[in-house]
């Protein structure tokens, strides 16, 4: 066997010589910054990230919490066009006459309801611009959560060369950086939204305030509404996704500075059955007074666990997902619907419009992100009355022509 294994190894080696030899379109080394923010090894004992993990960056935390208070610039009735503390960049270089533009969009996936909702909104926005004749072709590659495929997708857009703008919704921050930078170098305007990349080469990076704010909204609500010493259970989807890790990091920080006791932090994979089972078991071992979730998926299952166990409703942090909002209304519990603004899916399209028009856009386009509080609940329920249960209240598509059919009957 030895020869054969040697051969394999040899192949790998040979490879690398080849690699070294060839000309390359590798993006510039993202080492700077890359190293820091991307996770290094953490010691095995500490398993759930949190405030003292590499996911917590004090500065970002402080900035985001502050941004919640800032009054955003822009039209109030169109939050997807608002921007917080924008630093505008000139886009004259990309300005071009005429319509019938080719807009290319590399989507991480539509593998969860939040993305599905946003994706519909985006398509509706595109249709509007297609009506206007501004956009000719809207070319989409869906990577189905496969970073590797998304890299290829972006490369393909660059190769094709006929994209008038490239929108990227990265599936993972660190891993997409090289590809996005390659896209930037192609000279086409690149728009990144939702999750970011470790680079500022794109024209604009569109995102709501962010994970820290999201996590803090819920955590602060729990702190305010629970007696000191109350027990809080934190339900998380999965480790390793920066957006989610930031949410927990912020919450963890706030909890650790509060009187509340975090009885557990569990990863549920967003699976309702798992969530219900976990909560049920915690209830068997003792009371749980508050639930913090890093995403709304399956929130209802958690609530039901309390019902089925015959326990009083906890103070609950959910999301602006309709199923939860409706449950919230039915049970009239003390709750908050944290929001990771879904309407951000409109913004990239409109940003492209501006860029083509040569209008300046914020280099980092921070969209407002405000949780749904009890008093706003009914309003949002009415506004989304017909919407399916896995729809997100702050999807911001009410004024689009396709409303509501596009969202109701998919």
């Amino acid at each position, binding site marked *: 066997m030895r020869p054969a294994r040697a051969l394999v190894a040899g192949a790998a080696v040979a490879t690398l010589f080849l690699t070294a030899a060839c000309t390359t379109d590798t993006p510039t*080394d993202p080492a700077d910054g890359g190293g820091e923010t*991307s996770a290094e090894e953490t010691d095995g004992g500490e398993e759930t990230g949190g405030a003292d993990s590499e996911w917590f960056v004090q500065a970002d935390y402080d900035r985001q919490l502050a941004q919640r208070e800032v009054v955003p610039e822009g039209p109030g009735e169109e939050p997807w066009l608002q921007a917080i503390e924008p630093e505008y960049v000139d886009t004259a270089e990309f300005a071009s006459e005429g319509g019938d533009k080719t807009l290319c969009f590399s989507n991480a996936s539509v593998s969860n309801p939040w993305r599905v909702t946003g994706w519909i909104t985006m398509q509706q926005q595109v249709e509007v611009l297609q009506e206007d004749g501004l956009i000719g072709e809207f070319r989409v590659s869906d990577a189905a959560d496969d970073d590797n495929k998304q890299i290829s997708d972006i490369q393909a857009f660059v190769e094709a060369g006929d994209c008038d703008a490239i929108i990227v919704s990265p599936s993972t921050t660190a891993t997409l950086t090289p590809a996005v930078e390659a896209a930037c170098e192609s000279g086409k305007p690149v728009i990144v939204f939702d999750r970011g990349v470790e680079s500022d080469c794109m024209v604009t990076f569109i995102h709501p305030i962010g994970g820290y704010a999201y996590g803090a909204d819920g955590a602060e609500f729990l702190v305010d509404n629970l007696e000191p010493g109350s027990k809080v259970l934190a339900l998380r989807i999965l480790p390793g996704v920066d957006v989610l890790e930031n949410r927990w990091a912020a919450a963890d920080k706030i909890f650790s500075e509060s009187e509340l006791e975090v009885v557990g932090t569990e990863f549920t994979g967003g699976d309702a059955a798992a969530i219900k089972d976990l909560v049920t078991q915690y209830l068997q071992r003792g009371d749980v007074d508050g639930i913090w979730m890093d995403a709304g998926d399956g929130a209802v299952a958690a609530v039901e666990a309390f019902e089925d166990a015959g326990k009083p409703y906890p103070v609950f942090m959910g999301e602006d997902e309709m199923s939860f909002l409706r449950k919230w209304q039915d049970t009239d519990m003390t709750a908050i619907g944290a929001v990771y603004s879904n309407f951000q899916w409109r913004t990239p399209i409109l940003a492209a419009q501006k860029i083509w028009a040569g209008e300046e856009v914020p280099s980092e386009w921070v969209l407002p992100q405000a949780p749904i509080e009890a008093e706003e609940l009914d309003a949002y329920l009415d506004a989304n009355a017909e919407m399916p249960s896995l729809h997100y209240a702050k999807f911001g598509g009410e004024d689009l022509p396709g409303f509501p059919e596009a969202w109701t009957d998919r």
Partner: protein
Amino acid sequence: MSTAVATATPTARPTSRRRRRIGSTEIVYLALVGILVVAGVLVAMGGGNLFSTANTAYMLTQTSLLGFVAIGQTFVILCRSLDLSVGYVVALCSIVGATTMAGDPSRVWLGVVAALAAAAGIGLVNGLVVTKLRVNAFIATLGVGLIVKGYLDTQFKGPAGDVPSSFQMFGYTRVGPVPISTIVMLVVAAVGIVLLTRTRQGYHMFAVGGNVDVARLSGIRADRTVIIAHVLCSTCAGIAGLLIAARFGTGNALVYSYGLDLDSIAAVVLGGTLLLGGRGSVAGTVGGVLILAVLDTVFNVLDVDPFFKDVLRGVVIIAAVALYARRQIDPASSRARFRSNRRRDPVRSGARPDPTTTDGGASA
């Protein structure tokens, strides 16, 4: 699964030069060509060009990752084993590689070695559990996969490590439309072909997969062969992990969710290798991978709904294997046809060779 696969037993292998029938591998490539033609036409009708540099590059890039894994998978499947842990190995190796390199170009080699070593280690464990503990490969590799997953989830939160640009070339450089990674994949494939058709080890893999008792009787260390196959399989997955690292510029634990395990098995079977071992080829596997990649590209170019892709993939895989099964039913004799899906085929497959149990039962 067992019996249905066995239908293949009575087909001619390319090994018989005289009155050689067209082998599975040829079929695979014929299918590939067919698909390319159809796809090319479809894309052309859509006003595109499937064979544009961009699309070709895309297509080939898609082959590299799955290619490495599937080539490795071929070895274990040939040995009548199976590896469901490859996805986790890829993830692990992307991280091991990236963290070892830690952005320092001078540590690239170290990273490569470390990653491949880690991979080989896991392959060794797989092999030992399967052979020494006699755990069904399905469960064994599933379990080992879970263990690796647990380690990854615990130790690494998402992306880790930093790959110097010199090594990122492995992921991005292209010679014409052909990515380096694809070339490397083909090199590995070539090595695999040599291994299987020109080395004793390869011969022994066919033997162990064909009939482990015959292999033992001929002095082949069956366990060792299976273990080596698993080591090779994981090592290939390790190379895939390095490719991931090179393309991501960092390692990423979540790679294990890409479904490489089942995809690779599908590709191998698509490539005409028997799921029950004893017959198959790396060349076929590469063909299978190419077929899947072409489909991916076409779906992409034609902007097919991502979910519809899954449907089509599923259908294509089943259909293809069904076609193989068709032609693998031996027309030679009606009895063979009837017996085709038997598990122990006495004489014709030289079954039951345990020397210690020679009974008077005459074979017919």
